[in-house]
């Protein structure tokens, strides 16, 4: 049977068909839907882990324990899991273990565009790259064979366009591999230096065998065409190559580490002009140069950003398209906090009080967009708290002491914020930490997390108690604020600034996209009372706009009325009220 599946859906299907029994992940675009889809298979245990390292550890443990396992994350998630990742190459595995990294060239929803192919070489594990959904499913099954044959984790690299584009997949059946018998294997599993030294030697031996495998694997294939041009490519770049050079000979690498040197050399010798087409880093190109080849690569193809067939075409043939409109001349639609977003009130007050706010990764990063303009920094998951503490130190040491306010989401706090908060308390910081608690992982599409009391399957489970957590680590000042009560937020923050100790504030309000079954009566503006002062525009609410009469208006399709109420609280002229029914 055939189906149109996204790359992520295909990986999920592939895991099921490969007989995977344990699947773990932390949500992160573009990888999130892999685990969401795996969770629909009752044969596979699946969990949202607290972060990518935990996800990696759990899945690796399952592979040590004898069943096939998968862990999925976005590219920067592998940074979080890197500690385990690097050493897991030394320990190897008992049952098949695949690490899925979904990279984000072009940074559609990410803070950088690191190319995790480089990570495979760094960790010394085999790298498998599909170029469409069908390959995502089929190559994953081969990845499990590689993992078990060489007893190594396999890095399975997707990119946004593989993960989120859909293509036709031929569905297969599930196999049920016998769980492997667990035998205590201290020399391979305990990386004390005396063992690790031997394990490194063993890993280098495995890599030699893997290199031989890479020379002959069906994952790498040559499509012979016109031999005046030969192109080496991998992943999604293969598709762009076929669009632009339909006649050329193509060496498509599905496994580019270890690099199949002999295969590449043979291919290069058979073509007149050698080109490498790849996104981001010159990974294949550098490997070609290492064996004395001199392909055209990053000299023509940009290193920055995502590729497409137009960019590849223009890199070789110049501009061929018609220009009818200059899109830069049109009003943009930047992503904004939704109408009724529970984060808006805090950022409004942070802006009014001119606070220094290191923030974090999530929907609430949109608090940086004008007019809220409330955020000072955003680097990576969990960094807000450490950054806030460090900035506080800098201000003190510069003789201009003032408090800083870290703003971090509930899911992100649990992911990487807790250890940072302990650091503040332990080292006698005075930082204010605001947990923007919307009871979900919103940006990636509303996944539950340990603060929600629900599992990925929707079952009830234990729930993190922020108040007790704060108390347990020595924080004496803990407050909760209702996310839609502006005066309460202002008052609490002003009080917190006066305190000479660290403070935790949990700003509670459910994500408006998760609110169900409540009647919404939108607000409207009384034009008689509206003085066009523009105060309500400081909220940056997409439902509020200027009418033709130069008075504020509220779009009833977007406004959530009493569920939010912020504009009514901000208006000094009582001009905003429930629309009469």
């Amino acid at each position: 049977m055939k189906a149109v599946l996204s790359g992520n859906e295909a990986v999920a299907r592939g895991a099921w068909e490969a007989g995977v029994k344990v699947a773990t992940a932390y949500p992160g675009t573009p990888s999130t839907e892999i685990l969401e889809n795996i969770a629909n298979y009752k044969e596979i245990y699946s969990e949202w882990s607290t972060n990518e390292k935990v996800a990696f550890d759990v899945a690796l443990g399952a592979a040590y324990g004898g069943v096939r396992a998968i862990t999925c994350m976005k590219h920067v998630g592998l940074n979080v899991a890197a500690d385990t990742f690097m050493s897991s190459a030394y320990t190897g595995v008992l049952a098949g273990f695949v690490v899925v990294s979904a990279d984000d060239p072009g940074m559609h929803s990410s803070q950088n565009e690191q190319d995790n192919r480089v990570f495979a070489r760094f960790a010394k594990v085999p790298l498998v790259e599909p170029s469409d959904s069908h390959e995502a499913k089929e190559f994953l099954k081969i990845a499990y064979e590689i993992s078990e044959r060489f007893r190594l984790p396999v890095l399975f690299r997707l990119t946004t366009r593989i993960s989120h584009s859909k293509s036709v997949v031929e569905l297969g059946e599930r196999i049920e591999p016998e769980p492997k018998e667990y035998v205590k294997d201290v020399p391979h599993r305990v990386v004390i230096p005396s063992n690790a030294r031997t394990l490194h030697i063993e890993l280098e031996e495995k890599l030699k065998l893997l290199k031989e495998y890479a020379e002959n694997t069906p994952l790498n294939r040559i499509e012979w065409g016109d031999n005046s041009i030969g192109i080496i490519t991998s992943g999604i770049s293969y598709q762009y190559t076929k669009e632009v050079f339909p006649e050329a000979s193509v060496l498509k690498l599905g496994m580019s580490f270890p690099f199949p040197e002999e295969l590449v050399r043979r291919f290069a010798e058979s073509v007149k002009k050698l080109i490498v087409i790849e996104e981001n880093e010159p990974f294949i190109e550098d490997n070609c140069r290492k064996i004395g080849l001199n392909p055209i690569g990053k000299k023509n193809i940009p290193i920055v950003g995502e590729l497409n067939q137009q960019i590849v075409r223009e890199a070789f043939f110049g501009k061929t398209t018609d220009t009818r409109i200059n899109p830069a001349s049109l009003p943009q639609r930047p992503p904004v906090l939704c109408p009724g977003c529970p984060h808006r009130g805090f950022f409004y007050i942070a802006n009014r009080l001119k606070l220094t706010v290191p923030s974090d990764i999530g929907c609430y990063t949109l608090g940086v967009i004008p007019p809220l303009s409330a955020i000072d920094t955003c680097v990576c998951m969990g960094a807000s708290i450490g950054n806030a503490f460090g900035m506080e130190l800098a201000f003190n040491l510069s003789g201009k002491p003032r408090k800083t306010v870290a703003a971090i989401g509930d899911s992100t706090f649990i992911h990487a914020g807790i250890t940072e908060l302990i650091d503040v308390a332990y080292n006698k910081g005075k930082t204010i930490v605001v947990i923007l608690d919307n009871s979900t992982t919103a940006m990636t599409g509303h996944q539950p997390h340990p603060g929600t009391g629900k599992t990925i399957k929707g079952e009830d489970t234990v729930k993190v108690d922020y108040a007790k957590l704060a108390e347990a680590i020595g924080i004496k000042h803990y407050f909760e604020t209702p996310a839609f009560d502006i005066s309460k937020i202002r008052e609490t923050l002003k009080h917190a600034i006066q305190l000479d100790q660290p403070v935790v504030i949990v700003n509670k309000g459910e994500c408006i996209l998760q609110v169900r079954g409540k009647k919404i009566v939108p607000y409207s503006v009384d034009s008689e009372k509206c003085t066009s002062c523009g105060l309500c525009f400081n909220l940056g609410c997409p439902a509020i706009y200027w009418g033709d009469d130069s008075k504020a208006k509220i779009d009833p399709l977007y406004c959530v009325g009493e569920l939010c109420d912020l504009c009514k609280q901000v208006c000094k002229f009582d001009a905003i009220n429930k629309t009469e029914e």
Partner: protein
Amino acid sequence: MDVISILIVGVGGQGIILTGDLLADAALSVGFDVKKSEVHGMAQRGGAVVSGVRFGKKVYSPLICESEADFLLSFELLETLRNLNYLKKNGKVISSTQKIIPVTVSSGNQEYPQNIEERVKEFFSDAIFIDAIKIAKEAGHIRSANIALLGAISHFLPIERESFIKAIKAHVPPKTLEINLKAFELGFNYASKKIIV
């Protein structure tokens, strides 16, 4: 047959992704190779959304680049204008007349462009503009506007109606099925009338 490329554009929340899925499923069911691409995440928070569907005997890239689209199916006027470069010379524009004001405009910093229909017709004189919201209301719910637009474009594609109807049945919640089928019908009829005229 060459590959047919359809670019579907609009604003987050308009049902663009679902419309693309329906198109892809309908194309698959008549035996075409199909690819579809869009971006999730940040782009969904009130941002512009672009989804591309390509089908034919063999499709390589899932992306539709400038001067490559056979059809621009737009759910919002400003987005129609924004994406005009993506159409081939003889491409077809099918656009809703709905306007959704971006924050950059509502905050008073920029202006929503005027006379979009005329500007589009300068390049594509046979562009079809549809009051999809009105049709959706007539079908029974404002949220069926995307299916009305699907009905309109289906008129021009080498895929029979039954395949679309099957795809709609497989994807939309049962309680909205009747409304969606009606919206599809009305959209289809609107496009047929436009051609005769």
